[in-house]
């Protein structure tokens, strides 16, 4: 607890005091000799509503107590060792025994347990002592009633004479016999006080204060909160706190720690009294034994700090135990806080609907309004930043999109974001939904604000087409992909086009946002992470690299936002890191037009959720990446072949080839022609191209490769006979029978395959049919060549098209 400067409030809100409804309680702590003491007290009493507690210092400044999260200091070794003797009162059983055992094992300190019970008759005590001894701890048990000064003095005189002075104390003794305050007798009250307070005084009187290096006392949160039936216990613990704080003030060389525990599970008073479950029902989370011991160790590792520390889980809303105020920012996803312990935990609900969140109408997949992953990231950022009280966005780690959040038309769905800051600067987030009764995580991730890892986006080598930032760099428009390959509309439809589009890499441009607001007119519109539409485009632009499947994001390894919120227009680069079955992993980077890195993503995982209809018509843009993926499967593997199908601009076939290859390789280059017409270029590539009307198919590989593109045209049989010969016609018949396709398509395949063979000087090599594999693909072999042919429809041509690529084995 710490005291925070506060002026007398004009009015305090009428809190519901848990146990004195309607009674105004005002606690004022002011020096007797303060000249205006009486005035201060009267002013407090007049202003008070509900419960109010205030303290005035000598200058008359006013303070109110607030619960603040302890800021961890650099760790040090616990100041106990094998030469120490730790006296544990009430320590034969329960939490003190567990903590003593853990301390002895950790530091090697000897233990001296002090208790009333006789191990001969108390089996639980006997078992615990045996367990301590078995675990290798040097332990002594001394019998004494701590409330009896003479017993304590004589027991400790004897033991200390034998094994040396007590150097540390863990005072865990306590008496907790719940009793309604109206039935509480003076004797019972004094007995409870005697164990906690007199007991500690008796121990301190029986040891050498100069030898004492550590004093730990186990108090209770009840001292701060009260609890029905616990009036005596609350007073006893409060007085013990004062005693230990007083001891610390007089003995600066002794490390004093008064731990005010809430309820323990599996040990401790509440457990023995069978009250843990009742408390849990009130929303009070018990501390597990392991967790409690870990907290004690953590606090002892702090070289110095507050004497009184509260260790608690959620404790509900209690007027006598106020948390330090921290107002939540005015943001969309901070609508209705349900649980808020500043710096520790924040659970907040927001009600989503197509009215309040119109972007949902722009993200309808398979007929369902899905909350986009980028908006889940935005919600997580808003909540994490509020909890960590950070003005800058976090880095995201281990993002898992586990379940979609669907918001049906005309309905509302409550979204719940739960944030927990276990370690400073590290906020764990879970996003849940009313749709699954808040019983399943839809998104899970960690937000990091600490600076221990790389805080800046990671710069990786830029692709050549990114180094030239001229806005007029030739791009291939991506707008036609919306409505076919891409389901996003409106606010998310922002992909302008590709500077480079390959199966495993792409560079794309993202347009500036439109003027549509993200949220309804009554909701705050600011986004902590900036342009969510641009970010969504950065994910879905990868779809063109894998055009034959529908992908949804399932996770992100790490996302590092830039120093300023993301703004578009911007450039995005994506690179495939791996593919395992249906799971594709990509790295992403976003750049502004100055070439500065704005945001980087590592390990974005996309899962194939559906396959493209094989009969569907293609955008010519997507043929290149599709061919690259399929050629890698059908032709001798490695080195891979790059492919592109593009509409040539005005100019000669040479110009068209040059432009296509520039687009394929993403950099300026020059194409020369060998006398036989074969194109050549620098950079160690073998290139080939074919033209079909205004279309150009170009490939780049190494070794012997060639390509051809032919429109399927109906020709009389005798013309085909002339073009393909007898063996060719037999092959056509075979293909038509095996694939069920029409003879003109089959004939065009054979013709295109022959053209490929001719381009690499194997005009007369016979072609053989390889086993059928994928629909629409027919593979031929001819001497040392493998030739893959693919027949498809594209939007820009009425006829079917056959594309063929040959490669030497």
């Amino acid at each position, binding site marked *: 607890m710490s005291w925070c400067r506060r002026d007398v409030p004009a009015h305090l809100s*009428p809190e519901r005091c848990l146990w004195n409804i309607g009674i105004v309680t005002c606690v004022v702590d002011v020096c007797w000799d303060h000249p205006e003491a009486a005035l201060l007290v009267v002013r407090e009493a007049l202003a008070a509503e509900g419960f109010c507690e205030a303290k005035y210092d000598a200058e008359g400044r006013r303070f109110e107590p607030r619960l603040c999260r302890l800021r961890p200091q650099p760790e040090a070794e616990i100041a106990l060792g094998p030469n120490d003797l730790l006296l544990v009162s009430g320590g034969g059983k329960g939490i003190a025994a567990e903590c003593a055992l853990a301390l002895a094992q950790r530091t090697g300190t000897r233990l001296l347990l002090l208790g009333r019970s006789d191990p001969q008759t108390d089996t639980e005590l006997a078992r615990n002592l045996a367990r301590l001894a078995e675990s290798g701890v040097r332990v002594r048990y001394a019998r004494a009633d701590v409330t009896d000064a003479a017993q304590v003095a004589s027991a400790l005189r004897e033991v200390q004479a034998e094994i040396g002075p007590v150097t540390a104390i863990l005072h865990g003794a306590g008496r907790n016999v719940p009793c309604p305050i109206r039935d509480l007798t003076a004797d019972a009250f004094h007995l409870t006080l005697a164990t906690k307070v007199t007991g500690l005084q008796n121990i301190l009187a029986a040891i050498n204060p100069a030898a004492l290096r550590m004093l730990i006392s186990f108090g209770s949160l009840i001292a701060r909160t009260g609890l029905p039936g616990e009036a005596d216990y609350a007073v006893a613990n409060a007085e013990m706190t004062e005693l230990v704080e007083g001891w610390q003030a007089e003995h600066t060389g002794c490390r004093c720690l008064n731990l005010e525990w809430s309820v323990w599970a599996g040990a401790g008073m509440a457990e023995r009294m069978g009250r843990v479950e009742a408390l849990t029902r009130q929303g009070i989370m018990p501390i597990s034994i392991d967790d409690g011991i870990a907290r004690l160790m953590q606090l002892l590792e702090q070289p110095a700090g507050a004497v009184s520390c509260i260790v608690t889980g959620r404790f509900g809303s209690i007027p006598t135990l106020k948390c330090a105020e921290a107002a939540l920012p*005015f943001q969309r996803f901070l609508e209705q806080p349900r649980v808020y312990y500043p710096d520790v935990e924040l659970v907040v609900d927001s009600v989503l609907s197509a009215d309040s969140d119109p972007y949902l109408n722009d993200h309808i997949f398979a007929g369902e309004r899905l909350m986009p992953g980028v908006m889940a990231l935005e919600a997580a950022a808003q909540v994490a930043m509020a909890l960590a009280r950070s003005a800058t966005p976090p880095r995201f780690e281990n993002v898992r999109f586990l379940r979609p959040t669907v918001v049906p038309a005309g309905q509302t769905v409550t979204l719940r974001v739960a944030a927990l800051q276990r370690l400073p600067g590290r906020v764990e987030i879970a996003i849940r939904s009313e749709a699954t009764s808040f019983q399943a995580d839809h998104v899970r991730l960690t937000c990091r604000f600490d600076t221990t890892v790389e805080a800046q986006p990671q710069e990786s080598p830029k692709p050549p087409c990114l180094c030239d930032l001229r806005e007029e760099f030739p791009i291939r428009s991506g707008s036609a992909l919306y409505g076919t390959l891409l389901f996003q509309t409106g606010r998310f439809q922002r992909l302008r086009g590709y500077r480079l589009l390959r199966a495993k890499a792409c560079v794309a441009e993202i347009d500036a946002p439109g003027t549509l607001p993200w949220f309804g007119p009554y909701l705050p519109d600011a986004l902590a992470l900036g342009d969510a539409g641009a970010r969504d485009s950065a994910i879905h632009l990868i779809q063109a690299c894998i055009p034959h499947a529908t992908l949804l994001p399932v996770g992100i390894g790490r996302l590092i936002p830039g120093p300023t919120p993301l703004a578009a227009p911007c450039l995005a680069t994506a690179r495939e890191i791996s593919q395992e079955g249906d799971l594709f992993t990509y790295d992403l980077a976003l750049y502004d037009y100055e070439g500065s890195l704005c945001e980087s993503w590592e390990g974005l995982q996309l899962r194939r959720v559906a396959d493209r209809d094989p009969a569907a018509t293609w955008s010519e843009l997507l043929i290149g990446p599709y061919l690259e993926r399929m050629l890698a499967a059908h032709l001798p593997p490695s080195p891979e072949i790059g492919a592109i199908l593009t509409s040539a601009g005005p100019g000669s076939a040479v110009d068209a080839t040059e432009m296509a290859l520039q687009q394929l390789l993403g950099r300026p280059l020059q194409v020369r022609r060998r006398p036989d017409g074969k194109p050549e270029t620098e950079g160690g590539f073998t290139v080939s191209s074919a033209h079909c009307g205004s279309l150009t198919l170009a490939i780049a590989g190494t070794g012997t490769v060639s390509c051809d593109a032919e429109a399927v045209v109906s020709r009389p049989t005798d013309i085909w006979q002339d073009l393909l010969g007898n063996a060719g016609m037999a092959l056509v018949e075979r293909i038509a029978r095996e694939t069920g396709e029409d003879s003109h398509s089959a004939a065009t395949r054979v013709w295109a395959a022959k053209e490929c063979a001719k381009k690499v000087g194997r005009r007369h090599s016979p072609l053989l049919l390889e086993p059928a594999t994928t629909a629409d693909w027919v593979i031929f072999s001819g001497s040392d060549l493998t030739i893959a042919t693919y027949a498809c429809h594209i939007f820009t041509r009425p006829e079917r098209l056959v594309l063929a690529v040959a490669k030497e084995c």
Partner: protein
Amino acid sequence: MSDYYEYRHVVGFEETNLVGNVYFTHHLKWQGRCRELFLRDHAPTVLAALAEGLCLVTARCSCDYLQELAPFDEIAVRMRLGSQAQNRLVLLFEYWRCGPSGEELVARGEQQVVSMERRADHSVTPVPLPEGLTTALARFLRAAS
């Protein structure tokens, strides 16, 4: 201390229709009257802020009519706080007819009020509820739970 704010009203001829009972739109008018008098009594700073760009926008408004009202009925409109989040609050209204033999619930109403601010360019933008209002709500209208 009561947990509601009360506005009292006596029905007049101008509020009745041809048949002689109270026309339905007047109930909504009384909601507005109750709301503005609450501000006058308990949140005068909010009234001042309204002159400086603050807008309390009614985003939703409803009324359930349980009984007919007639001229000279004495009505108590009682306003409670339904819920409060960010810049939005829901006010709940109960309309009681007060007579010599006691009180009778004659209607229920609800409205959502949103705090907005009018900027120099005449656009309105959401702003958190003004402090004067939240304090008054906490003091005089207990949330219905």
